[in-house]
């Protein structure tokens, strides 16, 4: 557990988080590995884990009828995915698939939500880390939506 605590504290998402908080969050964490091509979660399923990527790459995808799966974001070491675990309805809104062998820290989201509810300082600290990720992805989506490199430019 001590090793996992160190790994967690070294991940950019938890950088500079109070050691006591890291220890608390660590109680919800476990190491996991996904093989290349393996789905980590599917759209519509319960958001039961929040993932901190340590090694490898992960693609976030949405499938549309007749068009198959479309990747809208790839993530690398140091990044997080499964970010919609904190708010209801706790359900994935896309698929996540390992592109290479991916090593992650998987955090049990029910456990983490309970700890955030019990200790609002921890909850706020995690929220402050989650919000920039969400805003950055919202902004990136806007730019993708603008289709910047299209012929109209």
């Amino acid at each position, binding site marked *: 557990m001590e090793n996992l605590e160190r790994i967690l504290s070294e991940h950019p998402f938890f950088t500079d988080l109070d050691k006591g908080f890291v220890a608390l969050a660590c109680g919800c964490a476990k190491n996991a590995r996904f093989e290349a091509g393996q789905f980590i979660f599917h759209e519509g399923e319960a958001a039961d884990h929040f993932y901190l990527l340590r090694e490898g790459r992960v*693609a976030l*995808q949405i499938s549309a009828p007749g068009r*198959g*799966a*479309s*990747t*809208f*974001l*790839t993530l*690398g070491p*140091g*990044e997080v995915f499964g970010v919609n675990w904190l708010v209801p309805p706790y359900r994935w809104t896309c698929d996540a698939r390992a*592109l290479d062998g991916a090593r992650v820290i998987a955090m049990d989201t029910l456990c983490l939500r309970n700890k955030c509810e019990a200790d609002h300082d921890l909850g706020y600290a995690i929220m402050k880390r989650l919000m920039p990720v969400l805003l*950055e992805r919202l*902004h*990136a989506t806007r*730019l*993708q939506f*603008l*289709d*910047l*490199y*299209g*012929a109209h*430019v």
Partner: protein
Amino acid sequence: MSDTAGVLKPASAAPPMAPRVAHVRRRRHDAPDAWTLELEMADGAPFNYAPGQFNMLTAFGVGEAAISVSGDPAKGPLIHTIRAVGPVSRALTKLAPGDPIGVRGPFGVGWPMAQAEGKDVLLVAGGLGLAPLRPALYRLLGERARYGKVTLLFGARRPDDIVFRREVESWRGRFDMEVEVTVDHAGPEWRGHVGVVTGLISRQAFDPSATIAMVCGPEVMMRFVAMSLVDRGLSEDFIYLSMERNMKCAIGHCGHCQLGPTFICRDGPVFTFTRLNPLLAVKEL
């Protein structure tokens, strides 16, 4: 060619409004709507230019358009990569080997190659924005020892839209530079990054005090790239953007390309973010 404070000045001594005649030597399809033309000057004289400069190309009987040079300044032939977006550019992209073409230039202030010496150089390109950066990259690689770490971050719309694809792949294979490519949209067959090019900046390790950035692409993309670089600690003075506007005369007389107090053709197209930041904040300027 003078080079005060590391900024290149226009070099042409030819009459600025008189085009030279060239012939298309080769034509290559580079992306769904972009073609690369290799040109040979009809008079056989060399065509000297600096990375980042542009020419006014004439499709005879149709008109003239400003197109950045995309070839190697140290080697012939003169190369332009053109996206077919309007009547003139469409006519230019349809020229076949042997066809005549008018060349007026080179014009404008290029990339700050002298200022970049001794520094790490970060090139950020979006879409066809790689074309004006390619001469700078040739210079960096041709005089590799003069520069520190060289990194190219390149964003395209889809995998099929990646211009200079074979060359980008060869750059990726080099040991003396780093290349990251991302696309906005991709199917499962694409194995590379997906996401906007600004996302590559946040993943990139660089020393802001020793880095100079050269950015070219759609204006919105450049704005957010520049802001991301500033967020990472890079000074606005060391972020260079290549602007695009409707250029007609290319010598600062007609005013078509005016951006606030500057003329893109004469004072640019390459500017520091320090100079552009207040102008880019003005909507519809």
